[in-house]
């Protein structure tokens, strides 16, 4: 963005919005929007508390567990779909349905099957994250350059060797893109899980804050969540750029 011939950094617009927020908050237009400075004050207040640390630990655990499963299952399965047409025909319709389905509606089903414990929350995270990871991994291995494939064959690679040493690597940029989107969806999954299933972790905090109209607390917590999601996204954006040169592995 340029203004009067000068480049304005992206953070400038962020400052503008922050200022607007502050003004709206100070004007007491609505109880829903407290001034930003007060939100930050509240943030500094609640982050060091034990309740917050506990909630964060609980949330992070379910998030990491669910994400690990989603990646551990989604990447190999999706990558195989790109290489094995039979598997692709079996799974692709389902993946396509789930990737855009309103998944929150399915959480009660998981709840009915697995109860109100951590298992259900972890599975909710998996449910939110896995489909896009599968779809992107599939897209990655689907377009591996045929000449790399022939190279592997001509040097005597077994199908397993070709998959592990070539297809998975050639698909890395798409896999990373999928994992990045999946991890963002997983944030959604863990919060929805904690809100719908058993009110623990951040879900519990949200519940307390909203039922007591503690808007400063609420916004402070949201800021923490946004910051976490943004950090995950930024790390993966950086990783993706690092693997740009993989483009040579595509047609």
């Amino acid at each position, binding site marked *: 963005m340029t203004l009067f011939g000068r480049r304005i950094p992206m953070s400038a617009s962020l400052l503008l919005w922050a200022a607007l927020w502050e003004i709206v908050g100070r004007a007491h237009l609505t109880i829903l929007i407290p001034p930003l400075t007060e939100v930050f004050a509240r943030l500094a207040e609640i982050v060091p508390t034990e309740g917050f640390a506990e909630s964060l630990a609980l949330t992070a655990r379910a998030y990491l567990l669910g994400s690990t499963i989603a990646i551990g299952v989604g990447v190999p399965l999706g990558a195989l779909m790109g290489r094995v047409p039979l598997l692709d025909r079996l799974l692709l319709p389902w993946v396509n349905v789930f990737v855009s389905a309103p998944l929150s509606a399915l959480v009660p089903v998981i709840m009915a099957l697995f109860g109100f414990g951590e298992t259900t929350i972890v599975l909710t995270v998996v449910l939110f994250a896995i489909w896009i990871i599968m779809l992107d991994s599939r897209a990655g291995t689907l377009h591996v350059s045929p000449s790399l494939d022939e190279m592997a064959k*001509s040097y005597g690679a077994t199908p397993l060797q070709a998959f592990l*040493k070539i297809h998975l690597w050639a698909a890395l940029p798409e896999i990373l893109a999928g994992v990045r989107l999946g991890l963002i969806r997983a944030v959604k999954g863990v919060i929805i899980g904690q809100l719908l299933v058993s009110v623990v972790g951040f879900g519990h905090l949200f519940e307390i804050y909203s039922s007591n109209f503690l808007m400063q607390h609420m916004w402070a917590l949201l800021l923490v969540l946004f910051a976490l999601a943004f950090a995950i996204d930024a790390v993966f954006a950086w990783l993706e750029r690092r693997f740009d040169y993989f483009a040579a592995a595509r047609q």
Partner: protein
Amino acid sequence: MTAAILPLAPAPAPEPMVSVRGITKTYPGGVEALSGIDLDFPRGELTALLGPSGCGKTTLLKIIAGLLPATKGEVLVDGRKVSGPGPERAFVFQDFALLPWATVLRNVAFGLELRGVARSEREAIAERHVAEVGLKGFEKRYPHELSGGMRQRVGLARALAVNAEVLLMDEPFSAVDEQTRRKFQEDLLSLVANQRKTFLFVTHSIEEAVYVASRVVLLSRRPSRVSQVIAPDIARDMAPDRIRRHPAYLDAVESIWQGLKQYVD
């Protein structure tokens, strides 16, 4: 001294390294690429396959490599019928086919890696071949950091590292700029002289074929047959610029052009 024009289906050497017998290839869509190809490739020599673009040169080379099934006919390597890739043949690809995420050293060692050769051993072998193709010092570089010519040297080193007796090269220098290509051709000549391997070299350049090959096989337009086999009678130990001005070289180029002219619209 003129280029000798040999009759169809010749058998110069007593025991060819690679024999192609009645190879026909019809692609699933109905495209008939090859129609009854009979060829012998003598041991320790470089034979060039030359023909109009789209005539089936790549198809023939891939059938010999075992990457593509023939519709009819058979391929014999060292007297044995083959029906798939094998360790006695190595392929050099037109687009290099390097792993972009692997260093030069790992790329060169990749054939050995697939065969389960221990890391230290295969890297020692790869290092030798990296040096042999003139890339010493580039072992830790990645393909995207190299020029096209250097990339193809990596592809060549990979093929040499598995110590195959037959090297199949599909237009290896076509993606390389002209100056680099000339240097490459000269290096290839000394490679053929030193390695005692059998080279099958696909090209669409008449000059390149005559310069590097002791035999040039002319394929006709699709469906392809062998239309001529020409053995340029050139002493390979001359200086490169002398070869390129030698009457035998110029005669061979001219007679191949006469043979190919009919296929040009």
